[in-house]
């Protein structure tokens, strides 16, 4: 009896909105875990880090002092931080090389009938090898006394030594080796999206292969190029394994994240390191926002 009354008072609209509200509640429940994860591990952590950058936590005294912008001032005066920033930027010089070579490789592989699968597999191997293994083997390839490079070419260069440039050259070479596979794969995917008709039409108009490359391929691949450049920059800004494992703390390879690790974890200077992390994070967030807007990631 009661049920019958209920259905009589429920209009179709009301019945639908009950459904919707229920669905909404379930939807919110379903996304609860990632939301909580975000709150704790991203928002709260980032917020605390921001707060911490204005303090000086002394672990020996177990005291926290609020010191306003002192950490930031120290950071900007600190030669170690400025050197780390400079190193980080300079190390990214291998990005354009890796991207260019990756593009050329992808174009080549597209034209190949046989063997492209094997070749692309070989080129992608470095990308799935752990950073630790990669840095270790290259560290010993570049070793001054018994490394392959010096032995084979008869050189006596102290690559992973105190010189400012040699260590960077070594890291550029390793960097291109590591990154080539990823850029190649992405360009291959991008090349697939270029309609054949464009090339056919250009051939008909008398354009050479080179001209077609410059005027069709490269412009139409610009979204991929943009994505590769931005991702490589964001990755490069956060590089740590190179400084720690390849260079074992050598001055010429110290990056920003290495500085944060040294000051924060090793020397327990949490406030100073948090200030550096905050500056780095702000920079990366801005670049990421630009990338996201350009590629319209949110349109899912």
């Amino acid at each position, binding site marked *: 009896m009661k049920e019958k009354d209920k259905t009589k008072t429920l209009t179709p609209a009301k019945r639908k909105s009950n459904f919707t509200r229920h669905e909404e509640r379930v939807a919110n429940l379903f996304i609860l875990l990632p939301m*909580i994860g975000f709150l704790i591990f991203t928002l709260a952590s980032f917020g605390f880090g921001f707060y911490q950058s204005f303090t000086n936590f002394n672990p020996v*005294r177990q005291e926290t002092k609020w010191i306003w912008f002192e950490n930031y001032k120290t950071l900007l005066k600190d030669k170690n931080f400025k050197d780390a920033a400079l190193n980080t930027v300079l190390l990214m010089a291998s990005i354009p090389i890796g991207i260019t070579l990756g593009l050329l490789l992808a174009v080549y592989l597209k034209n190949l009938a046989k063997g492209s699968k094997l070749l692309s597999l070989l080129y992608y191997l470095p990308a799935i090898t752990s950073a630790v293994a990669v840095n270790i083997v290259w560290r010993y390839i570049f070793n001054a006394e018994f490394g392959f490079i010096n032995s084979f070419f008869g050189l006596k260069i102290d690559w992973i030594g105190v010189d400012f440039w040699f260590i960077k050259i070594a890291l550029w070479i390793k960097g291109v080796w590591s990154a080539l596979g990823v850029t190649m794969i992405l360009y291959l995917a991008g090349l697939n999206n270029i309609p054949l008709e464009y090339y056919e039409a250009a051939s008909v108009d008398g354009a050479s292969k080179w001209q077609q490359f410059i005027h069709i391929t490269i412009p139409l691949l610009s979204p991929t190029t943009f994505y590769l450049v931005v991702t490589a920059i964001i990755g490069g800004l956060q590089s740590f394994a190179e400084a720690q494992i390849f260079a074992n703390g050598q001055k010429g390879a110290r990056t920003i994240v290495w500085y944060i690790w040294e000051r924060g974890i090793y020397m327990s200077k949490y406030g100073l390191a948090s200030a550096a992390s905050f500056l780095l994070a702000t920079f990366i967030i801005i670049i990421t926002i630009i990338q996201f807007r350009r590629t319209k990631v949110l349109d899912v």
Partner: protein
Amino acid sequence: MKKKIIAPFALTLLFALVSCGTTTTDSLPGGGSNGGGQTSQQGTSTIEFFGWGSAEEQENFQTLVDAFMAENPDVRVIYSATDASGYMTTLRNRGSSLPDVFYMPDYEFMAWADSGRLYDMSNDVTQAELDSVWKLSTDMYRYDRSTTTLGTGPLFALPKDLGPYLLVYNKTLLQQIITEKGLTIGLPDPHVPMTWAAFRNYLKAIKKDNVFGIGSYEMMHAIYSNNADYWDATVRQQRITDPNFVNAIQFIADLHLVDGVMPSPSQQNSMNAYQRFLNGGAVFAWMGAWDLKAFWNQVTFDFDVIPTPVGPAAGAKSTSWVGSVGYAVSKNSRQIGAAMRLAKYLTFNEESARLNYKLGQAMPNVKAIAENDWVNNIGLEGRSLLPENKQLFIDTVNQTELIAGKNRSRYYLYDNTAILDFEDSLEPVFSGAKTAQQFMREYASSFQDDLDENASYLY
């Protein structure tokens, strides 16, 4: 609906994460103001002893701890150790729950003594006990918190040992070179320090292909032996632009750049002086008493120690740095009595002092054992009789007319950044890119900034 729960939950978490850092020792819950000590029902106290060391040192310490427990059946000691490089970080990360007894190295002593978290041992040790060990080793662990002065005031740690770092040479190799080259110079004098000029000439005379005169040169030895220091007596003003200091650094650099008797920074990077000395690639090197075990067992050559060369400055005296580690007791330990008993046992016990020198671990800290047993080679034989010149270790900590020993630079700092960054930046001088004078002039203001920051913790 779920959203209404999220917000306060998040705020609570945020608050919790924030409040972690703003509490002092007393208000932290649970793991707060207590050390590890507890008393179990049978009346035995349990204390935690934390240190560092190689697998072998840890074994030796476990033996000592077992002997202590045998003599003190009402105390149970839980001993654990990490590797040396991670020790301080681990200790700092223990937050407010420190071990009952733990290693306190010289280079961190000031910060910890100043924090008030170390137990004041002044009333638990008698003057007679203190007199039985080297004066330098007990004075250095005194600290006056009200005037932030080292060397006076309450005693905050007991000395484990003193480690003078001395100039050692490969006697076998040196004699070989002298014979080969038909030189008229003899072995270096074991009692009278050479001047820098004499030392340079000596090294040049024994120069040979593939063998360096000296593997490296200790910075502090050159600085201290030229009547110079990094800072003034108050440690607030830099003194690295002082001519004596500059000359000391340049002297070291010139050993490679001018005389060619020392490896370049690159070469030192790929093989350190210690390794080079063991391989016979260098005649002179530096050693502490802790290296003796390796020198006895891993190599077969004869070696001995000689006084550190003294610089040309007025008032200069041959000075070597003396490192040290102490045993500290946590102020908040629940078993202060038991902890002090362990610390005193480890410090004053004569058997452990003997064990130290017999195992080639350290110079005995108990004066009587060092001056009577050790110097007279009691219980030593074969290779463990080396080095002959043990008296030099004793003279260095006692200070004689010609020989002196001084604490390491970082001992005098609250915050070691000044020295760490300085040593890190010096490379251009040693590779010849800059003269020492140029470098000091340019670096002085950074160094002063670091000293100012150091002072900001104390004043």
